[in-house]
């Protein structure tokens, strides 16, 4: 569904992403794992056209243009909400621009994420978790083919987190695809069909959990594999020794 070829993202002299290639297939949840500053968000922002990039990004074999944007639902890492509006006004605005005709799905999402109490309050006054829910509803309202979620579980309560995870599963069962970045290994381990581990702007490993285990030549949790693949296990041991 989504193809990325030789993606390079530069911020001035600093190269954040160094020639990444990956593919997100229909019916799968694809996880992007990596330490802070590894290039996860830059990769996602490139897909959305929010940063300048070199390389090729295609959605369903087409470059992402105005029409293709309606096939994507995006939850950014930083809120892109309009603070002076209420969630209701924000949803109305997004729905108008997405050409949604019926409010039914939006209302169901509002209730699913427990936002009904907050729909008439200014977004600026909402808690971080509630703002995240607003961003999630705005991304899901048009039933997109591809969901791109950048650290979507940040600030979410257990109930909403569970609902979102279940929705992601249902979404891929219906033939959609999910690309999501997270630093919570347990969630990635449970949810993702395939994972790409990014470190310093390059993919150091890609595949199912089993394939990653083989590559790391070790058993254990995804966290252990991740630390081994990113070469941070040695560093952590050193830090712990120094601290104790």
């Amino acid at each position, binding site marked *: 569904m989504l193809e990325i070829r030789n993606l390079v993202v530069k911020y001035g002299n600093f190269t954040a992403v160094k020639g990444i290639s990956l593919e997100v297939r229909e019916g799968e949840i694809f996880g992007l794992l990596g330490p802070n500053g590894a290039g996860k968000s830059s990769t996602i922002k490139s897909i959305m056209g929010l940063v300048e990039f070199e390389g090729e990004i295609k959605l369903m074999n087409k470059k992402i243009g105005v029409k293709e944007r309606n096939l994507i639902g995006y939850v950014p890492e930083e809120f892109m909400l*309009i603070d002076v509006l209420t969630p209701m006004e924000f949803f*109305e605005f997004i729905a108008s621009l997405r050409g949604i005709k019926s409010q039914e799905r939006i209302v169901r999402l509002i209730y699913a994420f427990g936002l009904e109490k907050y729909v008439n309050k200014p977004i600026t*006054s909402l808690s971080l978790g509630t703002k995240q829910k607003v961003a999630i509803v705005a991304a899901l309202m048009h039933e997109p083919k591809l969901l791109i979620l950048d650290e979507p579980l940040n600030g979410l309560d257990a109930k909403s987190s569970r609902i979102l995870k279940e929705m992601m599963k249902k979404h891929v069962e219906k033939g959609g695809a999910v690309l999501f970045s997270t630093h919570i290994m347990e969630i990635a381990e449970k949810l993702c069909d395939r994972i790409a581990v990014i470190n310093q702007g390059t993919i150091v490993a890609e595949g199912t959990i089993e394939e990653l285990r083989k590559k790391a030549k070790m058993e254990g949790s995804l966290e252990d594999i991740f630390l081994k693949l990113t070469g941070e296990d040695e560093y952590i041991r050193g830090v712990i020794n120094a601290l104790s």
Partner: protein
Amino acid sequence: MPSLRELWKISGIYYRNLNFLTLIESRTSHTKGVGIEKLAKNANRSVVYNKIFISLIFLFSAIFAAMESSVMGYAAFMLLLMFLFSFFFLQTVTYFFQLNFQLLYTLPISPEDIRKVMFLTFVRIFDIPLILNLFAFPLAVSIFNLWYSAFPAFFGILLSELFSVAIVTSLSKFFYTKLSQPSGGWKEVLRVIFQIIWAATFFIFYAVMMWIRTLYTRLSLYEPIIEKYALIFKLIFPFNFSYLILSPDFISFGSSILFLFFGYLSIRWTINNISRIKELKVEEVPPPEKIRMKITGQIYGIIRKDIKMISRNPGLLMLVFLPTFEGILLMALGNSLTASLYIVFTFVIILTYTLFGFEKLMIMKLLPIPKGKVYLSKIFIGILVFGISLVIMDIYLFFKGEFPDIVEQLILLPAAFSAGVVCLYLGDRIGIKRSAGLSALGFILIVALGNVMLYLPGIGGLLFKGSTEQNLVASLISLIEFLIGVAIIKTAR
């Protein structure tokens, strides 16, 4: 325990934050992304420039007032100082009440010291003009009067400043709980009225500055009335201090002492309020019984969103008023309506750029909306503001006994639309991130081109002045320009 010097330093950090917040809020558009570092850097510089500007204005004003050497002249200066001070700092003080000092509570600083930091941050808002005024006016008065008249002048100014700070504090606390809060029915109307007052403070300040000298001359005409009721005026601030400067007696002295006590109470009230800053309170809104959404078309969706943003953002609302205000101002200074239009158009373009900045950075990249539709929605608001400005300027002329040519103005509207589209298109191509995203030269060139397009139908018509073809030629040029605008909207990618 931190020393006062250290607390002053900490307050400096909060003050920089306040300047940045004020700048961001007044810019109004989405500011995440490129250029934020530059904005942060410029925030303090622009605040210092503003303070120097206002200090100079007060300095000249103090000299004019001292030269008048009359009860009315002195009182007028003190009143003017009080109100202008309040107006000038109202917006910054409003943002001061939104500052979050909670971080300090996690550090080893006592609550008492935190209150001091809050107070010092507040003091920093007024610093240069406050101190300069305190000495400029007394000095000027002592030059044009007896040397010891500087003392009552000093206390008169001090009191004006104390009252002014109390006024601005109460207004800000009152306003900040009302602004940015969506609510239905009459509350919505009330909130918009608050916003207008909030934004209008800027214009009042500007207008008074333009006519300061005339104001003094006009006010001096009331001198005989004041003399007639001198006994009463000696009891009222700031006239009591005027009398104390010019012809001190027991009544003016006693009254001044009483008002100094009021000044003491007002500063105590202010300090108490400053150190009790709380998080932005939001009125409880009950959840709706049934959710009913209003989903519209794309263009109307953006316009609706923009209007809501304008109604809740004083900075944006100010930009909406600016074209009309500047137009009327130029006409009041003797320019014709036609000659004043260039400034109206320029401010309309600044408004559309600001509104467009948000979509450019986010909406156009994430949502399935063609550029042309975004242009159209912004130009719609721009032309609406342009049209309203034109109507208000017509009304102004009408009251002056002149009759504007309505047909000529109607012919102008399609050209204004097209000029707006061209400006927005070029600005977008060159790179609007915010209204300040373009270089000054780039902006000037684009607006100059827009103005050429705006005036072209009129110039074309002038070639046939007096003949029946004049309006026809102007209409034709306006129509051709309109079609160019439509073509840009249709083909914009």
